[in-house]
C-alpha cells in the first residue's frame, strides 16, 4: 500500500515498510549515516541519520523510522546539523587511533612523512625527493634547520627514539640536487595571471613554487641582494650553507619565477603600484627588526639580526674579544656561535629564565657550549653603559622563577639586591624580532600589533587581491610554518585568480591519540621490532669553529634506508575511506571538544586477512550481524554495558576462529578503521602534489596534545628529540 510523506518540503510516495532514510534517498536527499548498511536491519545507533519528524519531541533515526502517511520530515535544520556535529564529536572523543601519522599532524606543512619514508626505505630516491619538494619546497634547507615538530610526536619516542625525519629529507633533497637531473615539477598551462610576491624568504618562495606550478606568473621582490630571506641572512652558513639554499631557489627560477632583488617595499615600489600592475599580491615581508633590550642604554647593543646579516654578507663587525649575547632562542645561539667563529675568545649567553624554558633547540645549546660558549641563566639586563675607558658595562639582576605566565612558562621575578655588573667588548641583543610594516603604513592595509592582519583560514587581507603570510603575519616563527603559509597563500590566490570562492585549504579532521599508557604502548609495539635511531656525524669542535663550513653531515644511503624503514606507519589503514573522518570534516566536528576518558588502544592482528582495532569501533554492530548471517560458528558479539560496550570475540576465542569466512566483508562494511584489510589502503594520506593543509600555523581542528601540555617537562625528552616549541626561526 503506497503512502505519501513530505521530506524537506517535497512529497514522495513510497511503499509501506519503507524507512524515512530510503524515502529521502528516493528524493535524492542525502542523509548521512555511519551505522546503517544496506541489506542489514537498522542499527539506529550512531544518530547521524537523525531527522525531525513533525510532532515528535525527540529526533528520530531515519534508518529505522518507518515512513507513515502524511508524515512531515525535515532532514537538514540547524538543530539537526548541531545534533549530528555533536554526535560526531562524541564518537571522536572515544576514538583510540591516529587518523594520519602523528608526525604529519605535527608538521605545520602536513608533510606526508609516512609516504615519504616509505619511498626512502624502498630506495626510490627520485620519488622521495619529489614528495619532499612538493610539500616542503626547500627540503634540503629545512632538513638542516627545522626544529622538527614531527619528530616530537613520533610514536617511536615511546620505544627508542624518533625517526630522523629532518635528516632524511635533507638526505633525499641533497641527493636530488646533486644528481644532475634534479626534480622540477611540470607546471600547469599558463593562466596569464601575474602575482607579485613581496619577500623572497621561505613564505614567498613557497608561494612562488605553488603559484608557478598552477600556471601563474610570479615575480618576487626583495630588499636583499640574494633570495632566501632569513634562511640566507639570519642563519649562519655553518648550519645552512648558502649554496644549498641557492640550489633550491634555483628550482623556482627554472619554473619561471622572476626575482627583482634590491627592491624595498615602500621606498622603491608601493603596494598600490603592485596592485595595479599585478593580478594579486602576496606580502611575505617577514619579521626582520631585532627587538631592543628594553633597558636604558639599549642603543649600545648590536641587534642580532644585523650582526648575523653582516656575517652572512662577509661584512665584519668589530665585536672584540669578549662578547655578551642576550636571549635564549636559536638566534642567540647562532649569534654566539658566529661570534666564536669571528674570533671572540669569551662568549657568554645570558638568559632570564632557566635552561628548561629556553625556546631554542637543546641540541643547539649543546653545540654552542661544545664550541666554548658559556650559557648563564636566570640573569636579566637592567642597564647598559659605556665606561670612560670605552668598554661596555652591563648591569644585570639575578632572577627567580615565579608562577607560570600565559605562555605556560614560569615568569622570571628579579631577586632584590642581586644586581651585578659585567664588562664586554660587544653586547648582542637576541631578544626577538618584530615586523617592520613601515613601508605599508600609508596604504589602507590593516595592521595589528603583531604584524599584518590576515584571515588565518585564507591569508586574505582586507584589500581585495592582497594576501599576507609568514612571519609578517604571525611574528617571528618557524621556517616550516612560513613554507606552509606560502602554500596556503598560493591556494587562496589560485582560487581568487580563478574567480572561485576564496576558502583556503580546508583540512580533513584528524584524531590524534593522546599519550598512551603502559598497556596501550604494549599493544602498540606488539609487532614492532626495536631499532635504534641512525646517527649523523658532526665535525670536531676544534676544526669547525675556525670556519663557516657545515657542521653536520648527511646520511649515507644505506643508513638512510635503514632509518626510514623504522617508520611504523602509525596512520589508519582507512584514513582516506573512513566515513567517520569524512563526516567529521563535513560537519566541522572538533575531536577534542569532549576530550575525556576513552577506550584503550588495542590492536588484534592475529587474523590473516584483517586487523581489528576495537578503539575505533562506533558500535554499529554491522560486523556482528554479518558474521551471524553468514553462520560463523563463533562469530562476533556486542559485549558489556554503558560506556564499556565493545565488539569482541565471544568466549575468549581468537579473531581467526571468530570470522574465518567473512573477514573481508566485515572489513568492507566497517564504516571506520576498526576492521581493516591488511595491506590494502594506505597508512599515510597518500602522496598528492596538492596536499591538504592548513599551513597558517594555527591548527583549527587539531591541537597537538603533547604540545598542549602545560609543562614541557611532561613531553618525553630525549637527547635526539628536538625540544624547541617556539623557536624563532
Amino acid at each position, binding site marked *: 500500500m503506497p503512502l505519501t510523506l513530505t521530506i524537506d518540503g517535497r512529497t514522495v510516495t513510497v511503499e509501506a515498510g519503507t524507512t524515512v532514510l530510503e524515502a529521502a534517498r528516493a528524493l535524492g536527499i542525502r542523509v548521512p549515516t555511519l551505522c546503517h548498511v544496506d541489506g542489514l536491519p537498522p542499527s539506529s*545507533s550512531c544518530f547521524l541519520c537523525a531527522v525531525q519528524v513533525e510532532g515528535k*519531541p525527540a529526533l528520530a533515526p531515519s534508518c529505522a523510522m518507518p515512513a507513515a502517511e502524511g508524515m512531515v520530515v525535515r532532514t537538514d535544520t540547524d538543530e539537526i546539523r548541531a545534533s549530528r556535529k555533536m*554526535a560526531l564529536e562524541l564518537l571522536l572523543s572515544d576514538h583510540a587511533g591516529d587518523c594520519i601519522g602523528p608526525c604529519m599532524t605535527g608538521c605545520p606543512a602536513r608533510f606526508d612523512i609516512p609516504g615519504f619514508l616509505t619511498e626512502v626505505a624502498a630506495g626510490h630516491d627520485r620519488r622521495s625527493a619529489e614528495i619532499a619538494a612538493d610539500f616542503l619546497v626547500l627540503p634540503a634547507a629545512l632538513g638542516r634547520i627545522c626544529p622538527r615538530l614531527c619528530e616530537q610526536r613520533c610514536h617511536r619516542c615511546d620505544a627508542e627514539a624518533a625517526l630522523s625525519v629532518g635528516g632524511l629529507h635533507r638526505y633525499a633533497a641533497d641527493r636530488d640536487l646533486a644528481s644532475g637531473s634534479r626534480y622540477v615539477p611540470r607546471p600547469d598551462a599558463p593562466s596569464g595571471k601575474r602575482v607579485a610576491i613581496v619577500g623572497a624568504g621561505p613564505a614567498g618562495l613557497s608561494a612562488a613554487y605553488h603559484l608557478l606550478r598552477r600556471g601563474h606568473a610570479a615575480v618576487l621582490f626583495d630588499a636583499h641582494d640574494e633570495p632566501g630571506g632569513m634562511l640566507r641572512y639570519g642563519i649562519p652558513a655553518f648550519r645552512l650553507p648558502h649554496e644549498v639554499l641557492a640550489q633550491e631557489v634555483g628550482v623556482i627560477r627554472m619554473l619561471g619565477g622572476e626575482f627583482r632583488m634590491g627592491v624595498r617595499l615602500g621606498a622603491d615600489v608601493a603596494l598600490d603600484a603592485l596592485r595595479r600592475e599585478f593580478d594579486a599580491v602576496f606580502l611575505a615581508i617577514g619579521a626582520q627588526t631585532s627587538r631592543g633590550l628594553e633597558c636604558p642604554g639599549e642603543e649600545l647593543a648590536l641587534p642580532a639580526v644585523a650582526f648575523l646579516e653582516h656575517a652572512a654578507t662577509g661584512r665584519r663587525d668589530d665585536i672584540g674579544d669578549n662578547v655578551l649575547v642576550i636571549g635564549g632562542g636559536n638566534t642567540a645561539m647562532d649569534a654566539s656561535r658566529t661570534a666564536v667563529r669571528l674570533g671572540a675568545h669569551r662568549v657568554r649567553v645570558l638568559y632570564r629564565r632557566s635552561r628548561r624554558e629556553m625556546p631554542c633547540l637543546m641540541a643547539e645549546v649543546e653545540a654552542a657550549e661544545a664550541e666554548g660558549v658559556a650559557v648563564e641563566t636566570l640573569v636579566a639586563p637592567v642597564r647598559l653603559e659605556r665606561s670612560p675607558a670605552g668598554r661596555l658595562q652591563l648591569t644585570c639582576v639575578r632572577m627567580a622563577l615565579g608562577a607560570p605566565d600565559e605562555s605556560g612558562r614560569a615568569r622570571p621575578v628579579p631577586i632584590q639586591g642581586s644586581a651585578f655588573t659585567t664588562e664586554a667588548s660587544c653586547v648582542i641583543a637576541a631578544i626577538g624580532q618584530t615586523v617592520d610594516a613601515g613601508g605599508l603604513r600609508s596604504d589602507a592595509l590593516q595592521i595589528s600589533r603583531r604584524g599584518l592582519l590576515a584571515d588565518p583560514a585564507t591569508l586574505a587581507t582586507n584589500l581585495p587581491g592582497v594576501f599576507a603570510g609568514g612571519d609578517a603575519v604571525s611574528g617571528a616563527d618557524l621556517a616550516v610554518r612560513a613554507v606552509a603559509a606560502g602554500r596556503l597563500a598560493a591556494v587562496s590566490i589560485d582560487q581568487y585568480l580563478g574567480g572561485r570562492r576564496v576558502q583556503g585549504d580546508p583540512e580533513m579532521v584528524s584524531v590524534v591519540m593522546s599519550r598512551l599508557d603502559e598497556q596501550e604502548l604494549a599493544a602498540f609495539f606488539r609487532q614492532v621490532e626495536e631499532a635504534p635511531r641512525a646517527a649523523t656525524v658532526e665535525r670536531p669542535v676544534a676544526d669547525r669553529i675556525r670556519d663557516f663550513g657545515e657542521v653536520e653531515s648527511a646520511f649515507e644511503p644505506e643508513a638512510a634506508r635503514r632509518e626510514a624503514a623504522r617508520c611504523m606507519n602509525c596512520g589508519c589503514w582507512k584514513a582516506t575511506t573512513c566515513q567517520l573522518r569524512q563526516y567529521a570534516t563535513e560537519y566541522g566536528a572538533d575531536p577534542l571538544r569532549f576530550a575525556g576518558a576513552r577506550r584503550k588502544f588495542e590492536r588484534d592482528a592475529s587474523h590473516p586477512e584483517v586487523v581489528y582495532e576495537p578503539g575505533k569501533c562506533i*558500535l554499529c554492530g554491522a560486523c556482528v550481524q554479518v558474521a551471524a548471517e553468514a553462520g560463523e560458528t563463533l562469530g562476533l*558479539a556486542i559485549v558489556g*554495558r*554503558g560506556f564499556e*560496550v565493545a565488539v569482541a570475540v*565471544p568466549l575468549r*576465542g581468537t579473531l581467526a576462529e571468530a570470522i574465518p569466512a567473512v573477514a573481508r566483508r566485515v572489513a568492507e562494511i566497517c564504516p571506520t578503521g576498526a576492521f581493516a584489510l591488511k595491506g590494502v589502503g594506505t597508512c599515510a594520506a597518500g602522496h598528492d602534489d596538492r596536499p591538504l593543509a592548513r599551513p597558517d600555523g594555527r591548527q583549527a581542528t587539531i591541537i597537538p596534545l603533547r604540545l598542549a601540555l602545560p609543562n614541557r617537562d611532561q613531553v618525553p625528552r630525549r637527547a635526539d628529540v628536538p625540544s624547541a616549541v617556539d623557536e624563532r626561526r
Partner: protein
Amino acid sequence: MIAIVRSWLGLAAAAVALAAAAWLVSEYLYARHVTPVEKARVEDLKQRARTDTEVQKVLKPEWDRQHEELVRRRNAYRYGGMALLVAIGVFFAWMRWLRPPDGQWLGVPPRLVRMLAKARDRPAPAVVSRARAGSDATPAPGPPGIDLSPLLRHHPVENRAVEPGAIDAILLSAGTRRDSLLPVLQAIQARYRYLPDAALRRVCEASAITPAQAAGVATFYGQFRLTPAGAHIIRVCEGTACHVAGAVEVRTELRRCLGMTDGGDTDPTGTFTVERVACIGSCSLAPVITVDDQIYGHLTALSVSGALRQFIDRAVALGGNGHRRSPAALATLHPHVPGRGAPPIEIRIGSGTCGRAAGADAVHAALHETVAAFGGGALVKAVGCSGLCHHEPLVEVIAGESRVLYGNVEADDVRALVRRHVPPAGLLRKVREEVHDVSRRLVDDRAWTPITSRAVDPAPYLDKQVRIVLENCGAVDPLRLDEYRQRGGMRALETCLTRLTPDEVIDHVRRSGLRGRGGAGFPTAVKWDITRRSADSPKYVICNGDEGDPGAFMDRAVLESDPFRVIEGMAIAAYAIGASEGIVYVRSEYPIAVRHARASIAAAEAHGWLGERILGTPFSFKVQVREGAGAFVCGEETALIQSIEGERGMPRLRPPYPAQSGLRGKPTLINNVETLACLPWIFRHGPDAFAALGTDTSKGTKVFSLTGKVKRSGLIEVPMGITIREIVEGIGGGVPEGRQFKAVLAGGPSGGCIPAHLADTPVDFEALASTGAIMGSGGLVVLDNRDCAVEIARYFLQFTQNESCGKCTYCRVGTKRMLEILERICAGRGVEGDIETLDELSARVRTGSLCGLGQTAPNPVLTTLRYFRDEYEAHVRERRCPAAVCKSLIHYRVLDHCTGCTLCAQACPAGAIVARPYVRHEVADDLCTRCGMCVTACPENAIEVA
C-alpha cells in the same frame, strides 16, 4: 516514672547487698588481723586465770583492759570497712543514676566529672597518636578487620568443576531455545556462583543459543559474573535512598574490614564477594546490604562489621546450611488450634522484604513458638507489607473489634505481646505462665517495660491515604487464595468474564481514566484498544515488574503482599485484548516477589482461575514468570521484550509499538504491576468510583515509596491531586529535627527534583512534568539541606551511564561526558563553561536517544541546574559544597566541646585523628578520607563537617 521506681528499687537492692558485703568483709578483716595474735594472748591469759586465782586477781584488770581493747579494735575494723564499702557503693550509685546532666555538680571541677564519666562508661581510653606524629607513632588504628577463620572452618570455599552433564540437565529443564538463555544462565550461576567459560561453551553446543548471544547477554546483565565468586555474596544496595543514607561509606568500610585492598571484588580468602546492586527495594531501611539471603538494614560504617560478624556467628552456629527453620516450617510444626469458645485472635507479622530485613523472621518464629507454648490460642499469619516500613518489624493483633499494632518488635518482646492478648489455655499453663512472669521480672529488667510501649498509632500515617492497590497489603496472607477471595478477590474477573464483552471491559477502563503507572502515564484503555485491534495473533500480556528505579519498591510490595491481585488484573487485560498467554517479568533482586508470583500463579491455576476455559467460558489464559537479571533499561518496553526473548536488553525504535509488534513479533500489551493491580478495585467498585478520585487528567490513586530524609518512611497510597507537601510533611512527618526540607526526587534517574518551594505541586502527571520531574514509577526520595544537588545529579548520571545499553552514541558517550563533568565539579575541579556544556549536552542527549532511558537521563541534571544552579556555581567558582557533602571540598574539624574520649580516633580507619585522652582531638586534614566514621562515633556531636 517506671525508670525512677526502677532506679530506687535497684538502689535499695544495691544498699542491702552492700551492707551484707560490708559485714562479711569486716568479719573477714577482723578474723584475719585480730584473731591470730590478740585472741591467742587473751585465751592464754584466760587459761592461766582459770587455774590460778592469784593470777586471776592480778590479771583481772589486765584481762578486762585487753578485752576492751579487742572490742574497740574489732569495731574500728568493722565500721571502717563498712564505711569504705558504702562509700564505694555511693560512688558507683552516683555514677550510675545520680549523675548531673551537664557534668556540673556540687562544685566538682568539670574536668574531673568528665574524667569520671569516661571512666564510668568507657573502657580505658587508648592513647592514640597519628602515624605522622613522630617516634611515638603507632600504626593507624581503626576497627580491626573481620576474622573469617571460623567461617572458613565451617564452610571451606570450594569451586566446582563444570560437568557437561549438569549443564545438560539445566538445559533440559530451562529449555534449549534462544529465549531460554536467561533462565539457563541463572541456573548456571546458581550452581557455580559465576558463569564458567566451559559451561557457556557447553550451552552453545547443546542448544540453539549462539556464542555471540551468550557472550552478549552474560556481559549485559548485572546479575551475571564471568569471574569466580566467593562462597558468600554480599550485595551492597546503591539505590537512591541508600546512597543518601551513606551506602558509599558502608561499602568502603565493608571492603576495608574484609581486607579487600586491591581492585578485586572478593576478599583474599575467597569467602566473601562484594557486589553492588542497583536497588533491592528496602529503601526504608537504608542503607541495606544482603549477605546471601540475609538482609541487614540501617547500617552505618561503624555497624557494618557487626552485621558481618553476626552473619558469621549465625552461619557457624547453624553448622553449615546457614538457614534458620523457616517460619513456614514452623507453621506446620505448630498448627493453629483455636481455643475453645474463645474469639478468634489473629496475629499478623509483616514478612515482606523490609520486614525481614528488620528481623521479622526471628519474630515470626518466636510468635509461633510462644503461641504454641500458650496452647495455640491465636492464629499467627505472615502477611505482606502494610506500608509502615519505618516501624518494621510490625506485628498486628486482631481480636474481634480490637486491633493493636506493634512496631519495631523484637523476638524478646514476643512473650509479653502474646501474654497480653492470648490467654494461656488450661490451668496448668496459666499457673506456669504466672510463675514464669514473676520469675522473669526478677531477673530481666526488660520484663518491667510493658509491651504497650511498642504500640504504634498508625493514624497520622494512614489518615491521608486512600488504599486501592494496597487494600489487602498487610492484611492477607499473600499466598492464600481463599483469603484473597474472602476480601472480594476474583470477583472482578468473574464479572468481566461472565457479564462484560471485551469492548465493554475496555470501555470501563476508559471511563475510570486509568493511566499507566509505570512512568509515562499513557492512557491504559487506549493501549488496550490498539492491542485489541491489532489483527495478528496470538497476543501477549506482559506484567512489567522490572522496577529498576532505585528508590522505588511499590511493585515489589504489591507482588509480595497481594500477588493474586496482579494475576487477576492480568487476566482481565488478557480477556479484553484477546490474549491467551501472559508473562510476569520480575526483577531477580526481588526473590520474595518472584516466589510469591510463582506460587500465586500455581494456586490460581489449581483453583481454575487460570488455565483452560476459565469459569467455563471460552477464555483461556496461562501465565509464567520470567526473572530479570539486573538491567534497569529492561523496564523499557522494547528492551523488556528483548530480554524475554533471551537477548541483550537493547531498546529499538518505536514505532512499531509493542501493541503492533512486540514479543515474538506479535501484538503485546505491557502494563506495569500497579496499573494491573488497580483493575480488580475498578471492576468491583465501578469505574466512576475510581474516576471520582484525583484530578481532571489524573484519576484514582498513586502508590509511592516515600524514603530518604523523612521521619516516617514507607509505602503509601494517596489520591491523585494531593500535594507533595502533604505527603512529605503530613504523611512522612517532615524531615528529621534540625534539618530543612530541600527537595524531593521524583521518578528516580529518569525524573528530577522538585524543590521545597514547589512542594505545593499536586500529584498529577502533567503538574509534576511541568516542574521538570516526572511521576515516574513512584519513588519519592526526600532530601534535606545536607544533600548536595550536584552530587545527587552525579549519582543519577552514574546510574544511567552504567545502565545504558550502549547503543545510541548520545546515551553511551554523551552521558559519560556529562558524568565526567559532574565528577569534575564535585571534585572541585570544575572550570568555567562546564555548566553551559552540561546544559548543551543535556539538551542533545534528550533528543538524540532512542529510548526513554537516554531521553530522560539528563532530567536530574536539568532540574538540579534549574533549581540549584547556585550550588553548581559554588562548586565551580568558589570550590565550595554548600551542603558539605562533596569530599574534595569539605573538611572535618573537632569542636571545642570535645570531651577527649578518643572514640573517634579508634573508629578512624585512616589514622587521621590526633587524640590525646581528655584533650580536644584534632583531625589531620591531609590524612582524612572524609568517611564520616568519626562523626558517627562521636557521642558528643563534636565533629563539624564544613
